[in-house]
């Protein structure tokens, strides 16, 4: 359904073009949930922004974004509006900032139905209250009369999920939908989103920095590093047999409820954005424990390996290495509530620059 092919995106930052995505390829089939995992600045948000053509002014995009075979970049204004209205729905990270504060929740939920679909006010209102009930909000009749600032953040995020479901899109783009919420609410919101999405057969591109969460609710998980995907495979396989050194590092640095450790394992160094990565060679080289001189020359391609795709030249050697090593006790995919400490909540400068 959604196909991204060799996507390059550069943003204009202070007169200079800075690359945030380089050679990103990804696809989401109808009804499939794909997780996009990465640290701050790895380009996760820019990917969904590119998909909805919501990149800031002056952004340079090359490569292809196709939805059902239609080229998203080539759409004219009416086609683009139709595409945004019918095909994709987006759940943003911070519901409080992404909902017009001056309208009541009822108006927010019904506006798209009334204006874009021509649904009558009474029918739209009924649909809105039904959806609020579906996302687990008590007393929806009262909630539709309230203003966004009168309800909690968790409830507002459920309102936003309801508004996306109201449009009955074919693909939901969820950009860290739970990051701004309390940990206890996070699990609830994710569970609701997951259930309703499955019930309705809606595809989803789920962006998160929480690897456990992505493994728990997605069919396939793509791991991003420096603006491109380094590994993509089914959630079950990724958890058991990650191949890329970065993915292995991420999996190893998760806290576990079962095992008590004094210090979590960390990947040395800091994550880089696409524009900071060396122009030639593998972007992960300077943090990789297995890097060889060869890794500095020529960008590795995303190639099939063990039923997935991996962007690492040494993947075959490393797999042999892993075979000879005793199997590490793998933790089962934990509940969504278990939050990984892979990424600090702070946004990276690259992402901040786009939302002044």
């Amino acid at each position, binding site marked *: 359904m959604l196909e991204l092919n060799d996507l390059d995106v550069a943003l204009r930052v202070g007169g200079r073009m800075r690359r945030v995505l380089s050679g990103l390829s990804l696809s989401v089939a109808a009804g499939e949930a794909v997780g996009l995992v990465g640290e701050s600045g790895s380009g996760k948000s820019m990917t969904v922004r590119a998909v909805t053509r919501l990149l800031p002014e002056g952004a340079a995009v090359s490569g292809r974004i196709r939805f059902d075979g239609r080229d998203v970049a080539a759409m004219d204004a009416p086609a683009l509006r139709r595409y945004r209205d019918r095909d994709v729905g987006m759940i*943003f990270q911070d519901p409080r*900032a992404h909902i017009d504060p001056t309208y009541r929740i009822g108006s927010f939920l019904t506006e798209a139905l009334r204006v874009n679909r021509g649904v009558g006010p009474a029918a739209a209102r009924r649909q809105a209250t039904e959806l609020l009930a579906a996302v687990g909000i008590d007393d929806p009749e009262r909630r539709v009369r309230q203003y966004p600032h009168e309800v909690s953040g968790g409830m507002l995020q459920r309102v936003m999920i309801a508004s996306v479901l109201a449009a009955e899109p074919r693909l939901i783009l969820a950009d860290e939908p739970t990051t701004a919420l309390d940990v206890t609410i996070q699990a609830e919101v994710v569970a609701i989103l997951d259930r309703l999405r499955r019930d309705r057969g809606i595809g989803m591109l789920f962006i998160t920095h929480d690897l456990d969460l992505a493994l728990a609710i997605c069919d396939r998980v793509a791991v991003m590093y420096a603006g491109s995907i380094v590994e993509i495979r089914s959630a079950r396989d990724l958890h058991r047999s990650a191949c890329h050194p970065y993915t292995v590092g991420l999996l190893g640095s998760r806290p576990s409820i079962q095992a008590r450790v004094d210090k979590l394992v960390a990947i040395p160094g800091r994550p880089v954005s696409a524009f900071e990565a060396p122009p030639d060679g593998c972007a992960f080289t300077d943090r990789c424990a297995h890097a060889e001189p060869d890794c500095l020359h020529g960008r590795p391609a995303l190639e099939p390996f063990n039923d997935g795709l991996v962007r690492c030249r040494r993947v075959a050697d490393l797999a042999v290495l892993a075979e000879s090593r005793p199997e590490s006790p793998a933790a089962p995919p934990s509940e969504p509530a278990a939050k990984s400490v892979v990424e600090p909540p702070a946004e990276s400068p690259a992402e901040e620059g786009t939302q002044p």
Partner: protein
Amino acid sequence: MTATLPAGPETVPTGPARGRAGTRAGALGRRARALYSFLGPSGTIAAAVLAAMLILAVGAGLFAPYDPNQASLLDAYQGPSMAHLLGTDAIGRDVLSRLIYGSRTSLLGPALVIACSTAVGVPLALIGAWYGGLVDAGAARILDLVYALPGLLLAVITAAMFGPGLTPAVVALSIAYVPFLSRVVRAAARQQRVSPYVDALTVQGFGPWRIGARHILRNIAPMVLGQSAVAFGYALLDLAGLSYLGLAVQAPTADWGVMVSDQDSMLRGHLLPVLVPGLLVVVCVMALTVLGARIAGERPERHPLWNRRGKRAGAE
């Protein structure tokens, strides 16, 4: 109110009717309280002053004791008395009646100016803020050009070309006030343009016109109204000044600016017919400025304009 009623069988049939009346009165009281808590003491005084002016202007025929143009040379330059509360002017016209009737032209002129310049300036600002780039830059340069031209000078030129009168003065000032509104509104709209909720609306498939008119404008409405109120004060001052110079409202017509220009009474030491209209102009401008600042200051979602429940929000 209804809670203090003795509970008894006889209250049951009258219950609904009384209840409705009670909640209506209660709602009115709540609205008044919400309005007061929004305006604050100074804002409330300013609003009351302006409301009083407006009532006087609309009902001038009811409140003015005399015809504003009825001259009586025998009664010239009378001091304040029971018959003439603020005395009479050089040809024996009642100063109070002239003030009351004068409030009509004195308030109508600036009202027209602000209505016209808002109607032109706000859409211009919204379009510039939305599209940015060349459209925005072009509009901004033209507005800068107009801004560089003092409104009074423009009005004087218009008067020289088309002759003195209220209409040319209003047209000239309307043009001059467009940048005053547009520049501020553009800056605010520009800020809204890049705010997350606009992105979210865009992804929902709404077009720029709807987002601009229904969402951005609504979010900046307090600021627009506040700026309009302040501009109203300035326009009032400008028009009074033009009338004083004899370029806007013409002499026999009752108008505060015209009344201030009565140098004859000044020279003869009769200050009341000149000072009182001048004072009214000052009071109006001050009230408008205070009110404007107050209106513009509140966050849009808590603004009584939209949120009828005012600040009571958290109580539920």
